[in-house]
């Protein structure tokens, strides 16, 4: 998506925050890239993503839970079904024929979807509607303690009111692999009927403004648009800022032996990505120990860790 509308304030906010993270204090923690799979009138069941979610309420869960990101797909409010958690890899977020729309003209302000008058496209709607998947984002599973660990920060993004300091979670669109000519978009309409376009592969391709900020602990619904049938693999990376210093790997407000024992398997040479053993991920290592935010955990980071170590 192009940055012309929001870039100045958005970038300013981001830079201010990055400057802050260079010192002690708000610590950026990013998730791994998580891929969600959308099937737009595809054949089901899909053997690669066997859990078809259609015609129910489902959330893409993006909580920072017990000191780590836990992205999941969470179908809930399903009549007689109760709540459950699905690995994003296993879930097919299904966009059925009832979500297919054809418009004679493009409403002003909605050009970012990438639709052509008279040509069908598909929308999972922000409001509950019988017959289609009602998809939102949630971090409601975060406990008061989880929320207390997050720092307040100002994304500087007027879309969705994300231009005030609060405990925000940033959902960044990283990549979309879909059918030829297929565009993906994500937006919300306000109480005044205006569009807040958060993500669009049509409008200027994917850039750092293809981002949606949600409040930690909240649950929101948005519109998901698709312009061609087929399978879309949508990559998101979520991030936020913690009140804990980097090096405090277990979010217990100190840097001690419990943190130190995690260091060896994360350390590599300069410019080498960490290669820890599962379940620890390279991204965990970077969140925990990459003090200078240069994509590795090397001796420079170890020196900073030692200074922070309280024993």
């Amino acid at each position, binding site marked *: 998506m192009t940055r012309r509308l929001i870039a100045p304030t958005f970038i300013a906010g981001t830079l201010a925050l990055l400057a802050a993270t260079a010192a002690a204090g708000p610590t950026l923690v990013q998730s791994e890239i998580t891929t969600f799979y959308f099937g737009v009138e595809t054949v089901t069941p899909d053997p690669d993503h066997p859990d078809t979610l259609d015609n129910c309420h489902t959330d893409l869960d993006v909580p920072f839970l017990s000191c780590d990101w836990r992205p999941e797909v969470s179908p809930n409010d399903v009549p007689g079904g109760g709540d459950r958690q699905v690995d994003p890899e296993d879930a097919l977020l299904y966009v059925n024929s009832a979500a297919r729309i054809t418009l004679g003209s493009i409403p002003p302000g*909605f050009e970012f979807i990438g639709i052509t008058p008279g040509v069908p496209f598909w929308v999972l709607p922000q409001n509950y509607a019988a017959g289609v998947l009602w998809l939102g984002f949630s971090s409601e599973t975060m406990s008061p303690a989880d929320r207390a660990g997050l720092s307040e920060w100002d994304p500087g993004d007027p879309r969705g009111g994300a231009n005030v300091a609060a405990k925000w979670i940033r959902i960044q669109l990283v990549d979309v692999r879909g059918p030829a000519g297929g565009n993906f978009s994500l937006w919300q309409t306000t*109480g*005044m009927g205006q569009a807040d376009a958060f993500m669009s592969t049509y409008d200027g391709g994917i850039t750092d403004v293809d981002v949606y900020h949600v409040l930690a602990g909240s649950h929101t619904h948005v519109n998901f648009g698709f312009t061609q049938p087929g399978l879309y693999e949508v990559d998101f990376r979520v991030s936020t800022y913690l009140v804990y210093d980097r090096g405090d790997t277990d979010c217990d407000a100190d840097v001690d032996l419990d943190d130190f024992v995690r260091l060896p398997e994360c350390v590599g040479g300069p410019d080498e990505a960490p290669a820890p053993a599962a379940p620890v991920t390279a991204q965990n290592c970077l969140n925990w120990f990459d003090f200078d935010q240069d994509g590795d955990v090397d001796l420079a980071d170890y020196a900073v860790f030692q200074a922070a170590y309280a024993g």
Partner: protein
Amino acid sequence: MTGMVKGTFIVLFGVGMLAGPATAAVLQSGHADLGLGYEEGWDLHIHVEHGMVDGLPVIDEEYEPDALIILVPNKLLGGRPAGAAWDPIGNGAAADTWLLSAVQQVGMPFVGIGAEEIAPGGFVNDELTLTLTQVVSPSGAGHFALYTTDGFGQPQFGMSSYEGGITAADAITVPAGGHLHFNYSFTELGLWAITFEASGTHSVDGPTAGSGTYYFHVVPEPATLALLGLGIVLAGRRGKAR
């Protein structure tokens, strides 16, 4: 709040017609639901998920409808949108309009309608109806509406005190076990009392209905209540939600 503080309220905002609840806390921001419960009869309440009440953080508490006034501090920039589709709000294009938004906004109440306490199978088709039955506006001439906007920004009204007055058609369906968010519009400043009737066909008790009156206070700006220095009154708190 105390009677004395309440007196201050009325003078400042000119709330003439409506005597508000005698003792009530104020929901200043955060997520709450108008809760539709049923246990051998209807139990309409307010469930604060997490919010600020009288300046203090509150997590997972229930209040009687008349024990918590919901603040409405959000005036629409530019006033009511133009176009006949917006007429059910009850004023003219660009007229002053205040909104509780269906989208959460920092520092403002975010009020849904929830029937999460009602188990599946408790009501026929797992369907409840919430009907607008009375609107008491500060001047007596104000209007209230409840609506969503669709993916292309068109409003879809579930309730309006304006168009055709209040009738049985001013109703929405709420799924048992579910929770929905709406925009609530108000056309004037001051204290409002809005009565809803919840109804449905209970699987054991048959057709049943129960009412609750909720209070909304439309204020000029978010800081106003803080300036009043409202005390901490939690008389209506019912304790942790079930």
